[in-house]
């Protein structure tokens, strides 16, 4: 009697694909739906892990969009500290699909984020990207001027996009109760202050993440009908949760939701591909070796493994080392790590 499993390849079976696989060899985890053409213009955004995606693509001479730049003779670490050289524009980490959609809508003037300027010690911060000017600006007017300029750059980046790469990072976010505006950090972490009358905790469901991205995709298709998408889920666990759950349970809930959203997108749209960075790093095969001692930050070896697999699957090779100056994914350019300061 024939079985549907009878003629499946080795990669379909746990024993041969994982159990007996060498510990440092994740195997044939990724087969892209289509090959990235290095001549295509790529927009990258997402959580801190997304910085590595952009870095690896740049290193492979892919045309990664970068609309806000600093002079070439400044060091990478200097540029990265001020949010340059990380993503398609200087928007910092975008942890949730809701924030990505909100940014795209803001570029068309469709929405205007509520409480968009936060104050801290007489300095003023763009609430949607408080980390890019670590010491804030002198006046609210300057924040508005810089925001207007930034939105023009984001719009320019979106207009040029042929491949949209997004790394889903979190489901937990904080939203303005009346408007639904979400923020990349909780008010009071980098700037501003938390007022429970104004803000509330929001934990996006898998369906909400899926719908957000469907809306993002629709916008991009309006701009570029042939636009393609690569989605991935950051393997970096939550620094802290406001859900009331144990942080490990909350992480599983969050990552499972994001992973499910990606699966729904891939199932529905031919032009959406999923890159399994989450699986590569958290694989049972790796037994946790790709996490640092804090069991959260991904090691350089882990990042290299994931990114090399991505490049290789797309027939791309690194021509230079142009990834961000970070070896420790949970460190320098991730605002959420600041939440550790609140740990008792």
């Amino acid at each position, binding site marked *: 009697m024939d079985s549907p499993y009878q003629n499946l390849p080795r990669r379909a079976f746990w024993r041969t694909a994982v159990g007996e696989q060498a510990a440092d060899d994740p195997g044939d985890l990724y087969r892209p739906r289509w090959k990235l053409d290095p001549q295509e213009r790529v927009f990258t955004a997402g959580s801190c892990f997304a910085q590595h995606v952009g870095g690896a693509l740049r290193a492979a001479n892919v045309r990664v969009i970068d609309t806000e730049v600093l*002079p070439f003779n400044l060091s990478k670490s*200097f540029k990265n500290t001020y949010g340059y050289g990380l993503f398609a524009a200087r928007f910092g980490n975008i942890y949730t699909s809701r924030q990505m959609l909100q940014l795209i809508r803001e570029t068309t003037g469709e929405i205007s984020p509520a409480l968009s300027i936060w104050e801290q010690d007489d300095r003023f911060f763009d609430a949607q990207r408080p980390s890019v*000017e670590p010491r804030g600006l002198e006046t609210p007017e*300057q924040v508005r001027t810089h925001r207007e*300029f930034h939105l023009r750059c984001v719009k320019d980046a979106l207009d040029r996009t042929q491949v949209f790469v997004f790394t889903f990072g979190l489901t937990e976010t904080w939203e303005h109760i009346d408007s639904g505006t979400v923020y990349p950090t909780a008010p009071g972490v980098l700037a501003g202050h938390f007022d429970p009358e104004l803000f509330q905790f929001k934990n996006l469901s898998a369906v909400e993440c899926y719908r957000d991205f469907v809306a993002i995709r629709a916008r991009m298709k309006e701009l570029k009908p042939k636009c393609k998408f690569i989605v991935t889920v950051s393997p970096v666990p939550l620094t802290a949760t406001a859900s009331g759950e144990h942080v490990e349970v909350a992480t599983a809930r969050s990552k499972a939701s994001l992973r499910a959203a990606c699966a729904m997108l891939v199932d529905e749209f031919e032009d959406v591909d999923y890159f399994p960075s989450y699986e590569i790093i958290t694989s049972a095969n790796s037994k946790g070796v790709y996490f640092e001692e804090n069991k959260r930050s991904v090691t350089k070896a882990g990042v290299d493994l994931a990114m090399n697999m991505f490049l290789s699957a797309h027939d791309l090779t690194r021509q230079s080392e142009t990834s961000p100056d970070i070896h420790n994914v949970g460190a320098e350019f991730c605002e959420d790590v600041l939440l550790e300061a609140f740990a008792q």
Partner: protein
Amino acid sequence: MKRILVIGSSHAGAVKAAWDEMKQENSTIELDFLVLPWPHLSEFHLYEDMTYGAKAPLAGQKAIDLSNTINGRETVSLTEYDLVFWVGYHSPVDALVRLMHNYAIDDVIEHDAPQRLSFILFREILMELVNNCIPNRMWLDAAKQTKLVIHLCPIAAETCLAIPQNKKNWRIATANSRIFKRILELMMKRLSARLAHHNIDVVEQPQETLAENGMTKTEFSVGSIRLMNAEAHPEKDFSHMNSAYGRLLLNALFVKLGTTDKESPNRAAS
């Protein structure tokens, strides 16, 4: 007798021309040159034994030959001199001008630029540009043994405003000359302080050579000559200075030497 070694790029031509005019009046000073125009100067290296110049394998034969033609030798020992004067040292000014051209900057300059900077970030970039001007470890070590004085590449002469591709950059940067000059002053102050920390002295561009807009007055650029064969630079050259400029530099250096000269440890030991 004070022995001074002048090193550097084609900008040292101004000093060479000035010294030809001045050496009769300065019998207690001896000036030697080991200079090379760009890009060949990048093949001059400082070695651990304080030898400086073009040596194989780090230098190619062309640079070695050129050094022999211009200087009559390939290398010198810095220990033989009371002072080393590095002329045409890497300057952050051109980077500043490009920055002001390409960026609108809060509280500094508003124009139709492709990019925008906050004032804090602008200030941080200036500090980075200054930090990029600190010599490498070998030179910092050398400065502990021999007195090292540097003079940055001069600021472009006003002549460059007549050249379309340069005109826009400089016009924008110098549109508010008060701010431009203030920025230059702050950068130089910072650079001098950083270099002084490493025992390196600076001869700044003489004030009398600067025009109202902060650029070099044309009169100090016309008639500049090349290191090779004393040929004149092209008429439109705006980056090289003439003997009048070189004379002011040497006078400033001699004042420095007279007032701050210390017996060099190597000299004392020799």
